[in-house]
């Protein structure tokens, strides 16, 4: 699936420091090159985004929060169905 929100992420990066000064720790909602607002909680930010944009995509980030590294070994290493009790047979044996 293609990644979305490229304009919003670029706009956020360009304005993050400025918004951080005005709204530290709050959740911002960005659509296109427009800041909808800063909110006290994720729930409020989602409600405001949906009220304004319905089911369209919009960016929600918490100011000052570092983008945490995502680590999902079962997915990235393909381990969801790994079973060392039943190793694959050797070809030609």
């Amino acid at each position: 699936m293609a990644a979305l929100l490229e304009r919003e992420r670029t706009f956020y990066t360009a304005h993050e420091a400025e918004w951080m000064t005005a709204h530290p720790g709050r959740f911002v909602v960005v659509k296109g090159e427009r800041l909808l607002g800063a909110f006290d909680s994720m729930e409020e930010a989602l409600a405001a985004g949906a009220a304004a944009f319905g089911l369209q995509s919009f960016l929600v980030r918490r100011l000052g929060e570092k983008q945490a590294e995502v680590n999902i070994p079962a997915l990235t290493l393909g381990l969801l169905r790994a079973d060392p009790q039943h190793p694959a047979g050797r070809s030609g044996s």
Partner: protein
Amino acid sequence: MPILNIQLAAQDPSGNQIPPLVALQQRGPVVQVSVSVEQNIAQQLLAQGVPLPAPERGFALIDTGATSTCMDEAAAARLNLPAIDVVTIASASHASTQQNVHPIQIEVVGLPITISAPRAIAAPLAAQGLVVLIGRDVLQHCTLFHNGPAGSFSLSV
């Protein structure tokens, strides 16, 4: 605090019963769930008269190794979920990929247990027979007890 108690039951391809401890070892802690759009978004949409897509049902695997909850990307597309961010997932086997983040609500089928996952990552889970991978962002609010010898687990939310 609602508590989910599950003892796994399964059959082999010949129809023979598999002991619960083997079923839990093979399948992991899985639970039937129904996934829909996050409740704060759903309330706004209903207020606007926008019909909500029917929830997606399937199995969720509780994965203590995952930092974040994931949702099957095809199911997310069927639910017409809005993306609220994009994250990069590293992979040992191929280049890192960018995946959308969606706000979802997970309900345990048949029980009054509702879990909010406002930042679920889209991932190809359907091939694994899963609709959701429940990660530590959700589990940090839960108590999980894995009883291997009994082939059961408990989750309180």
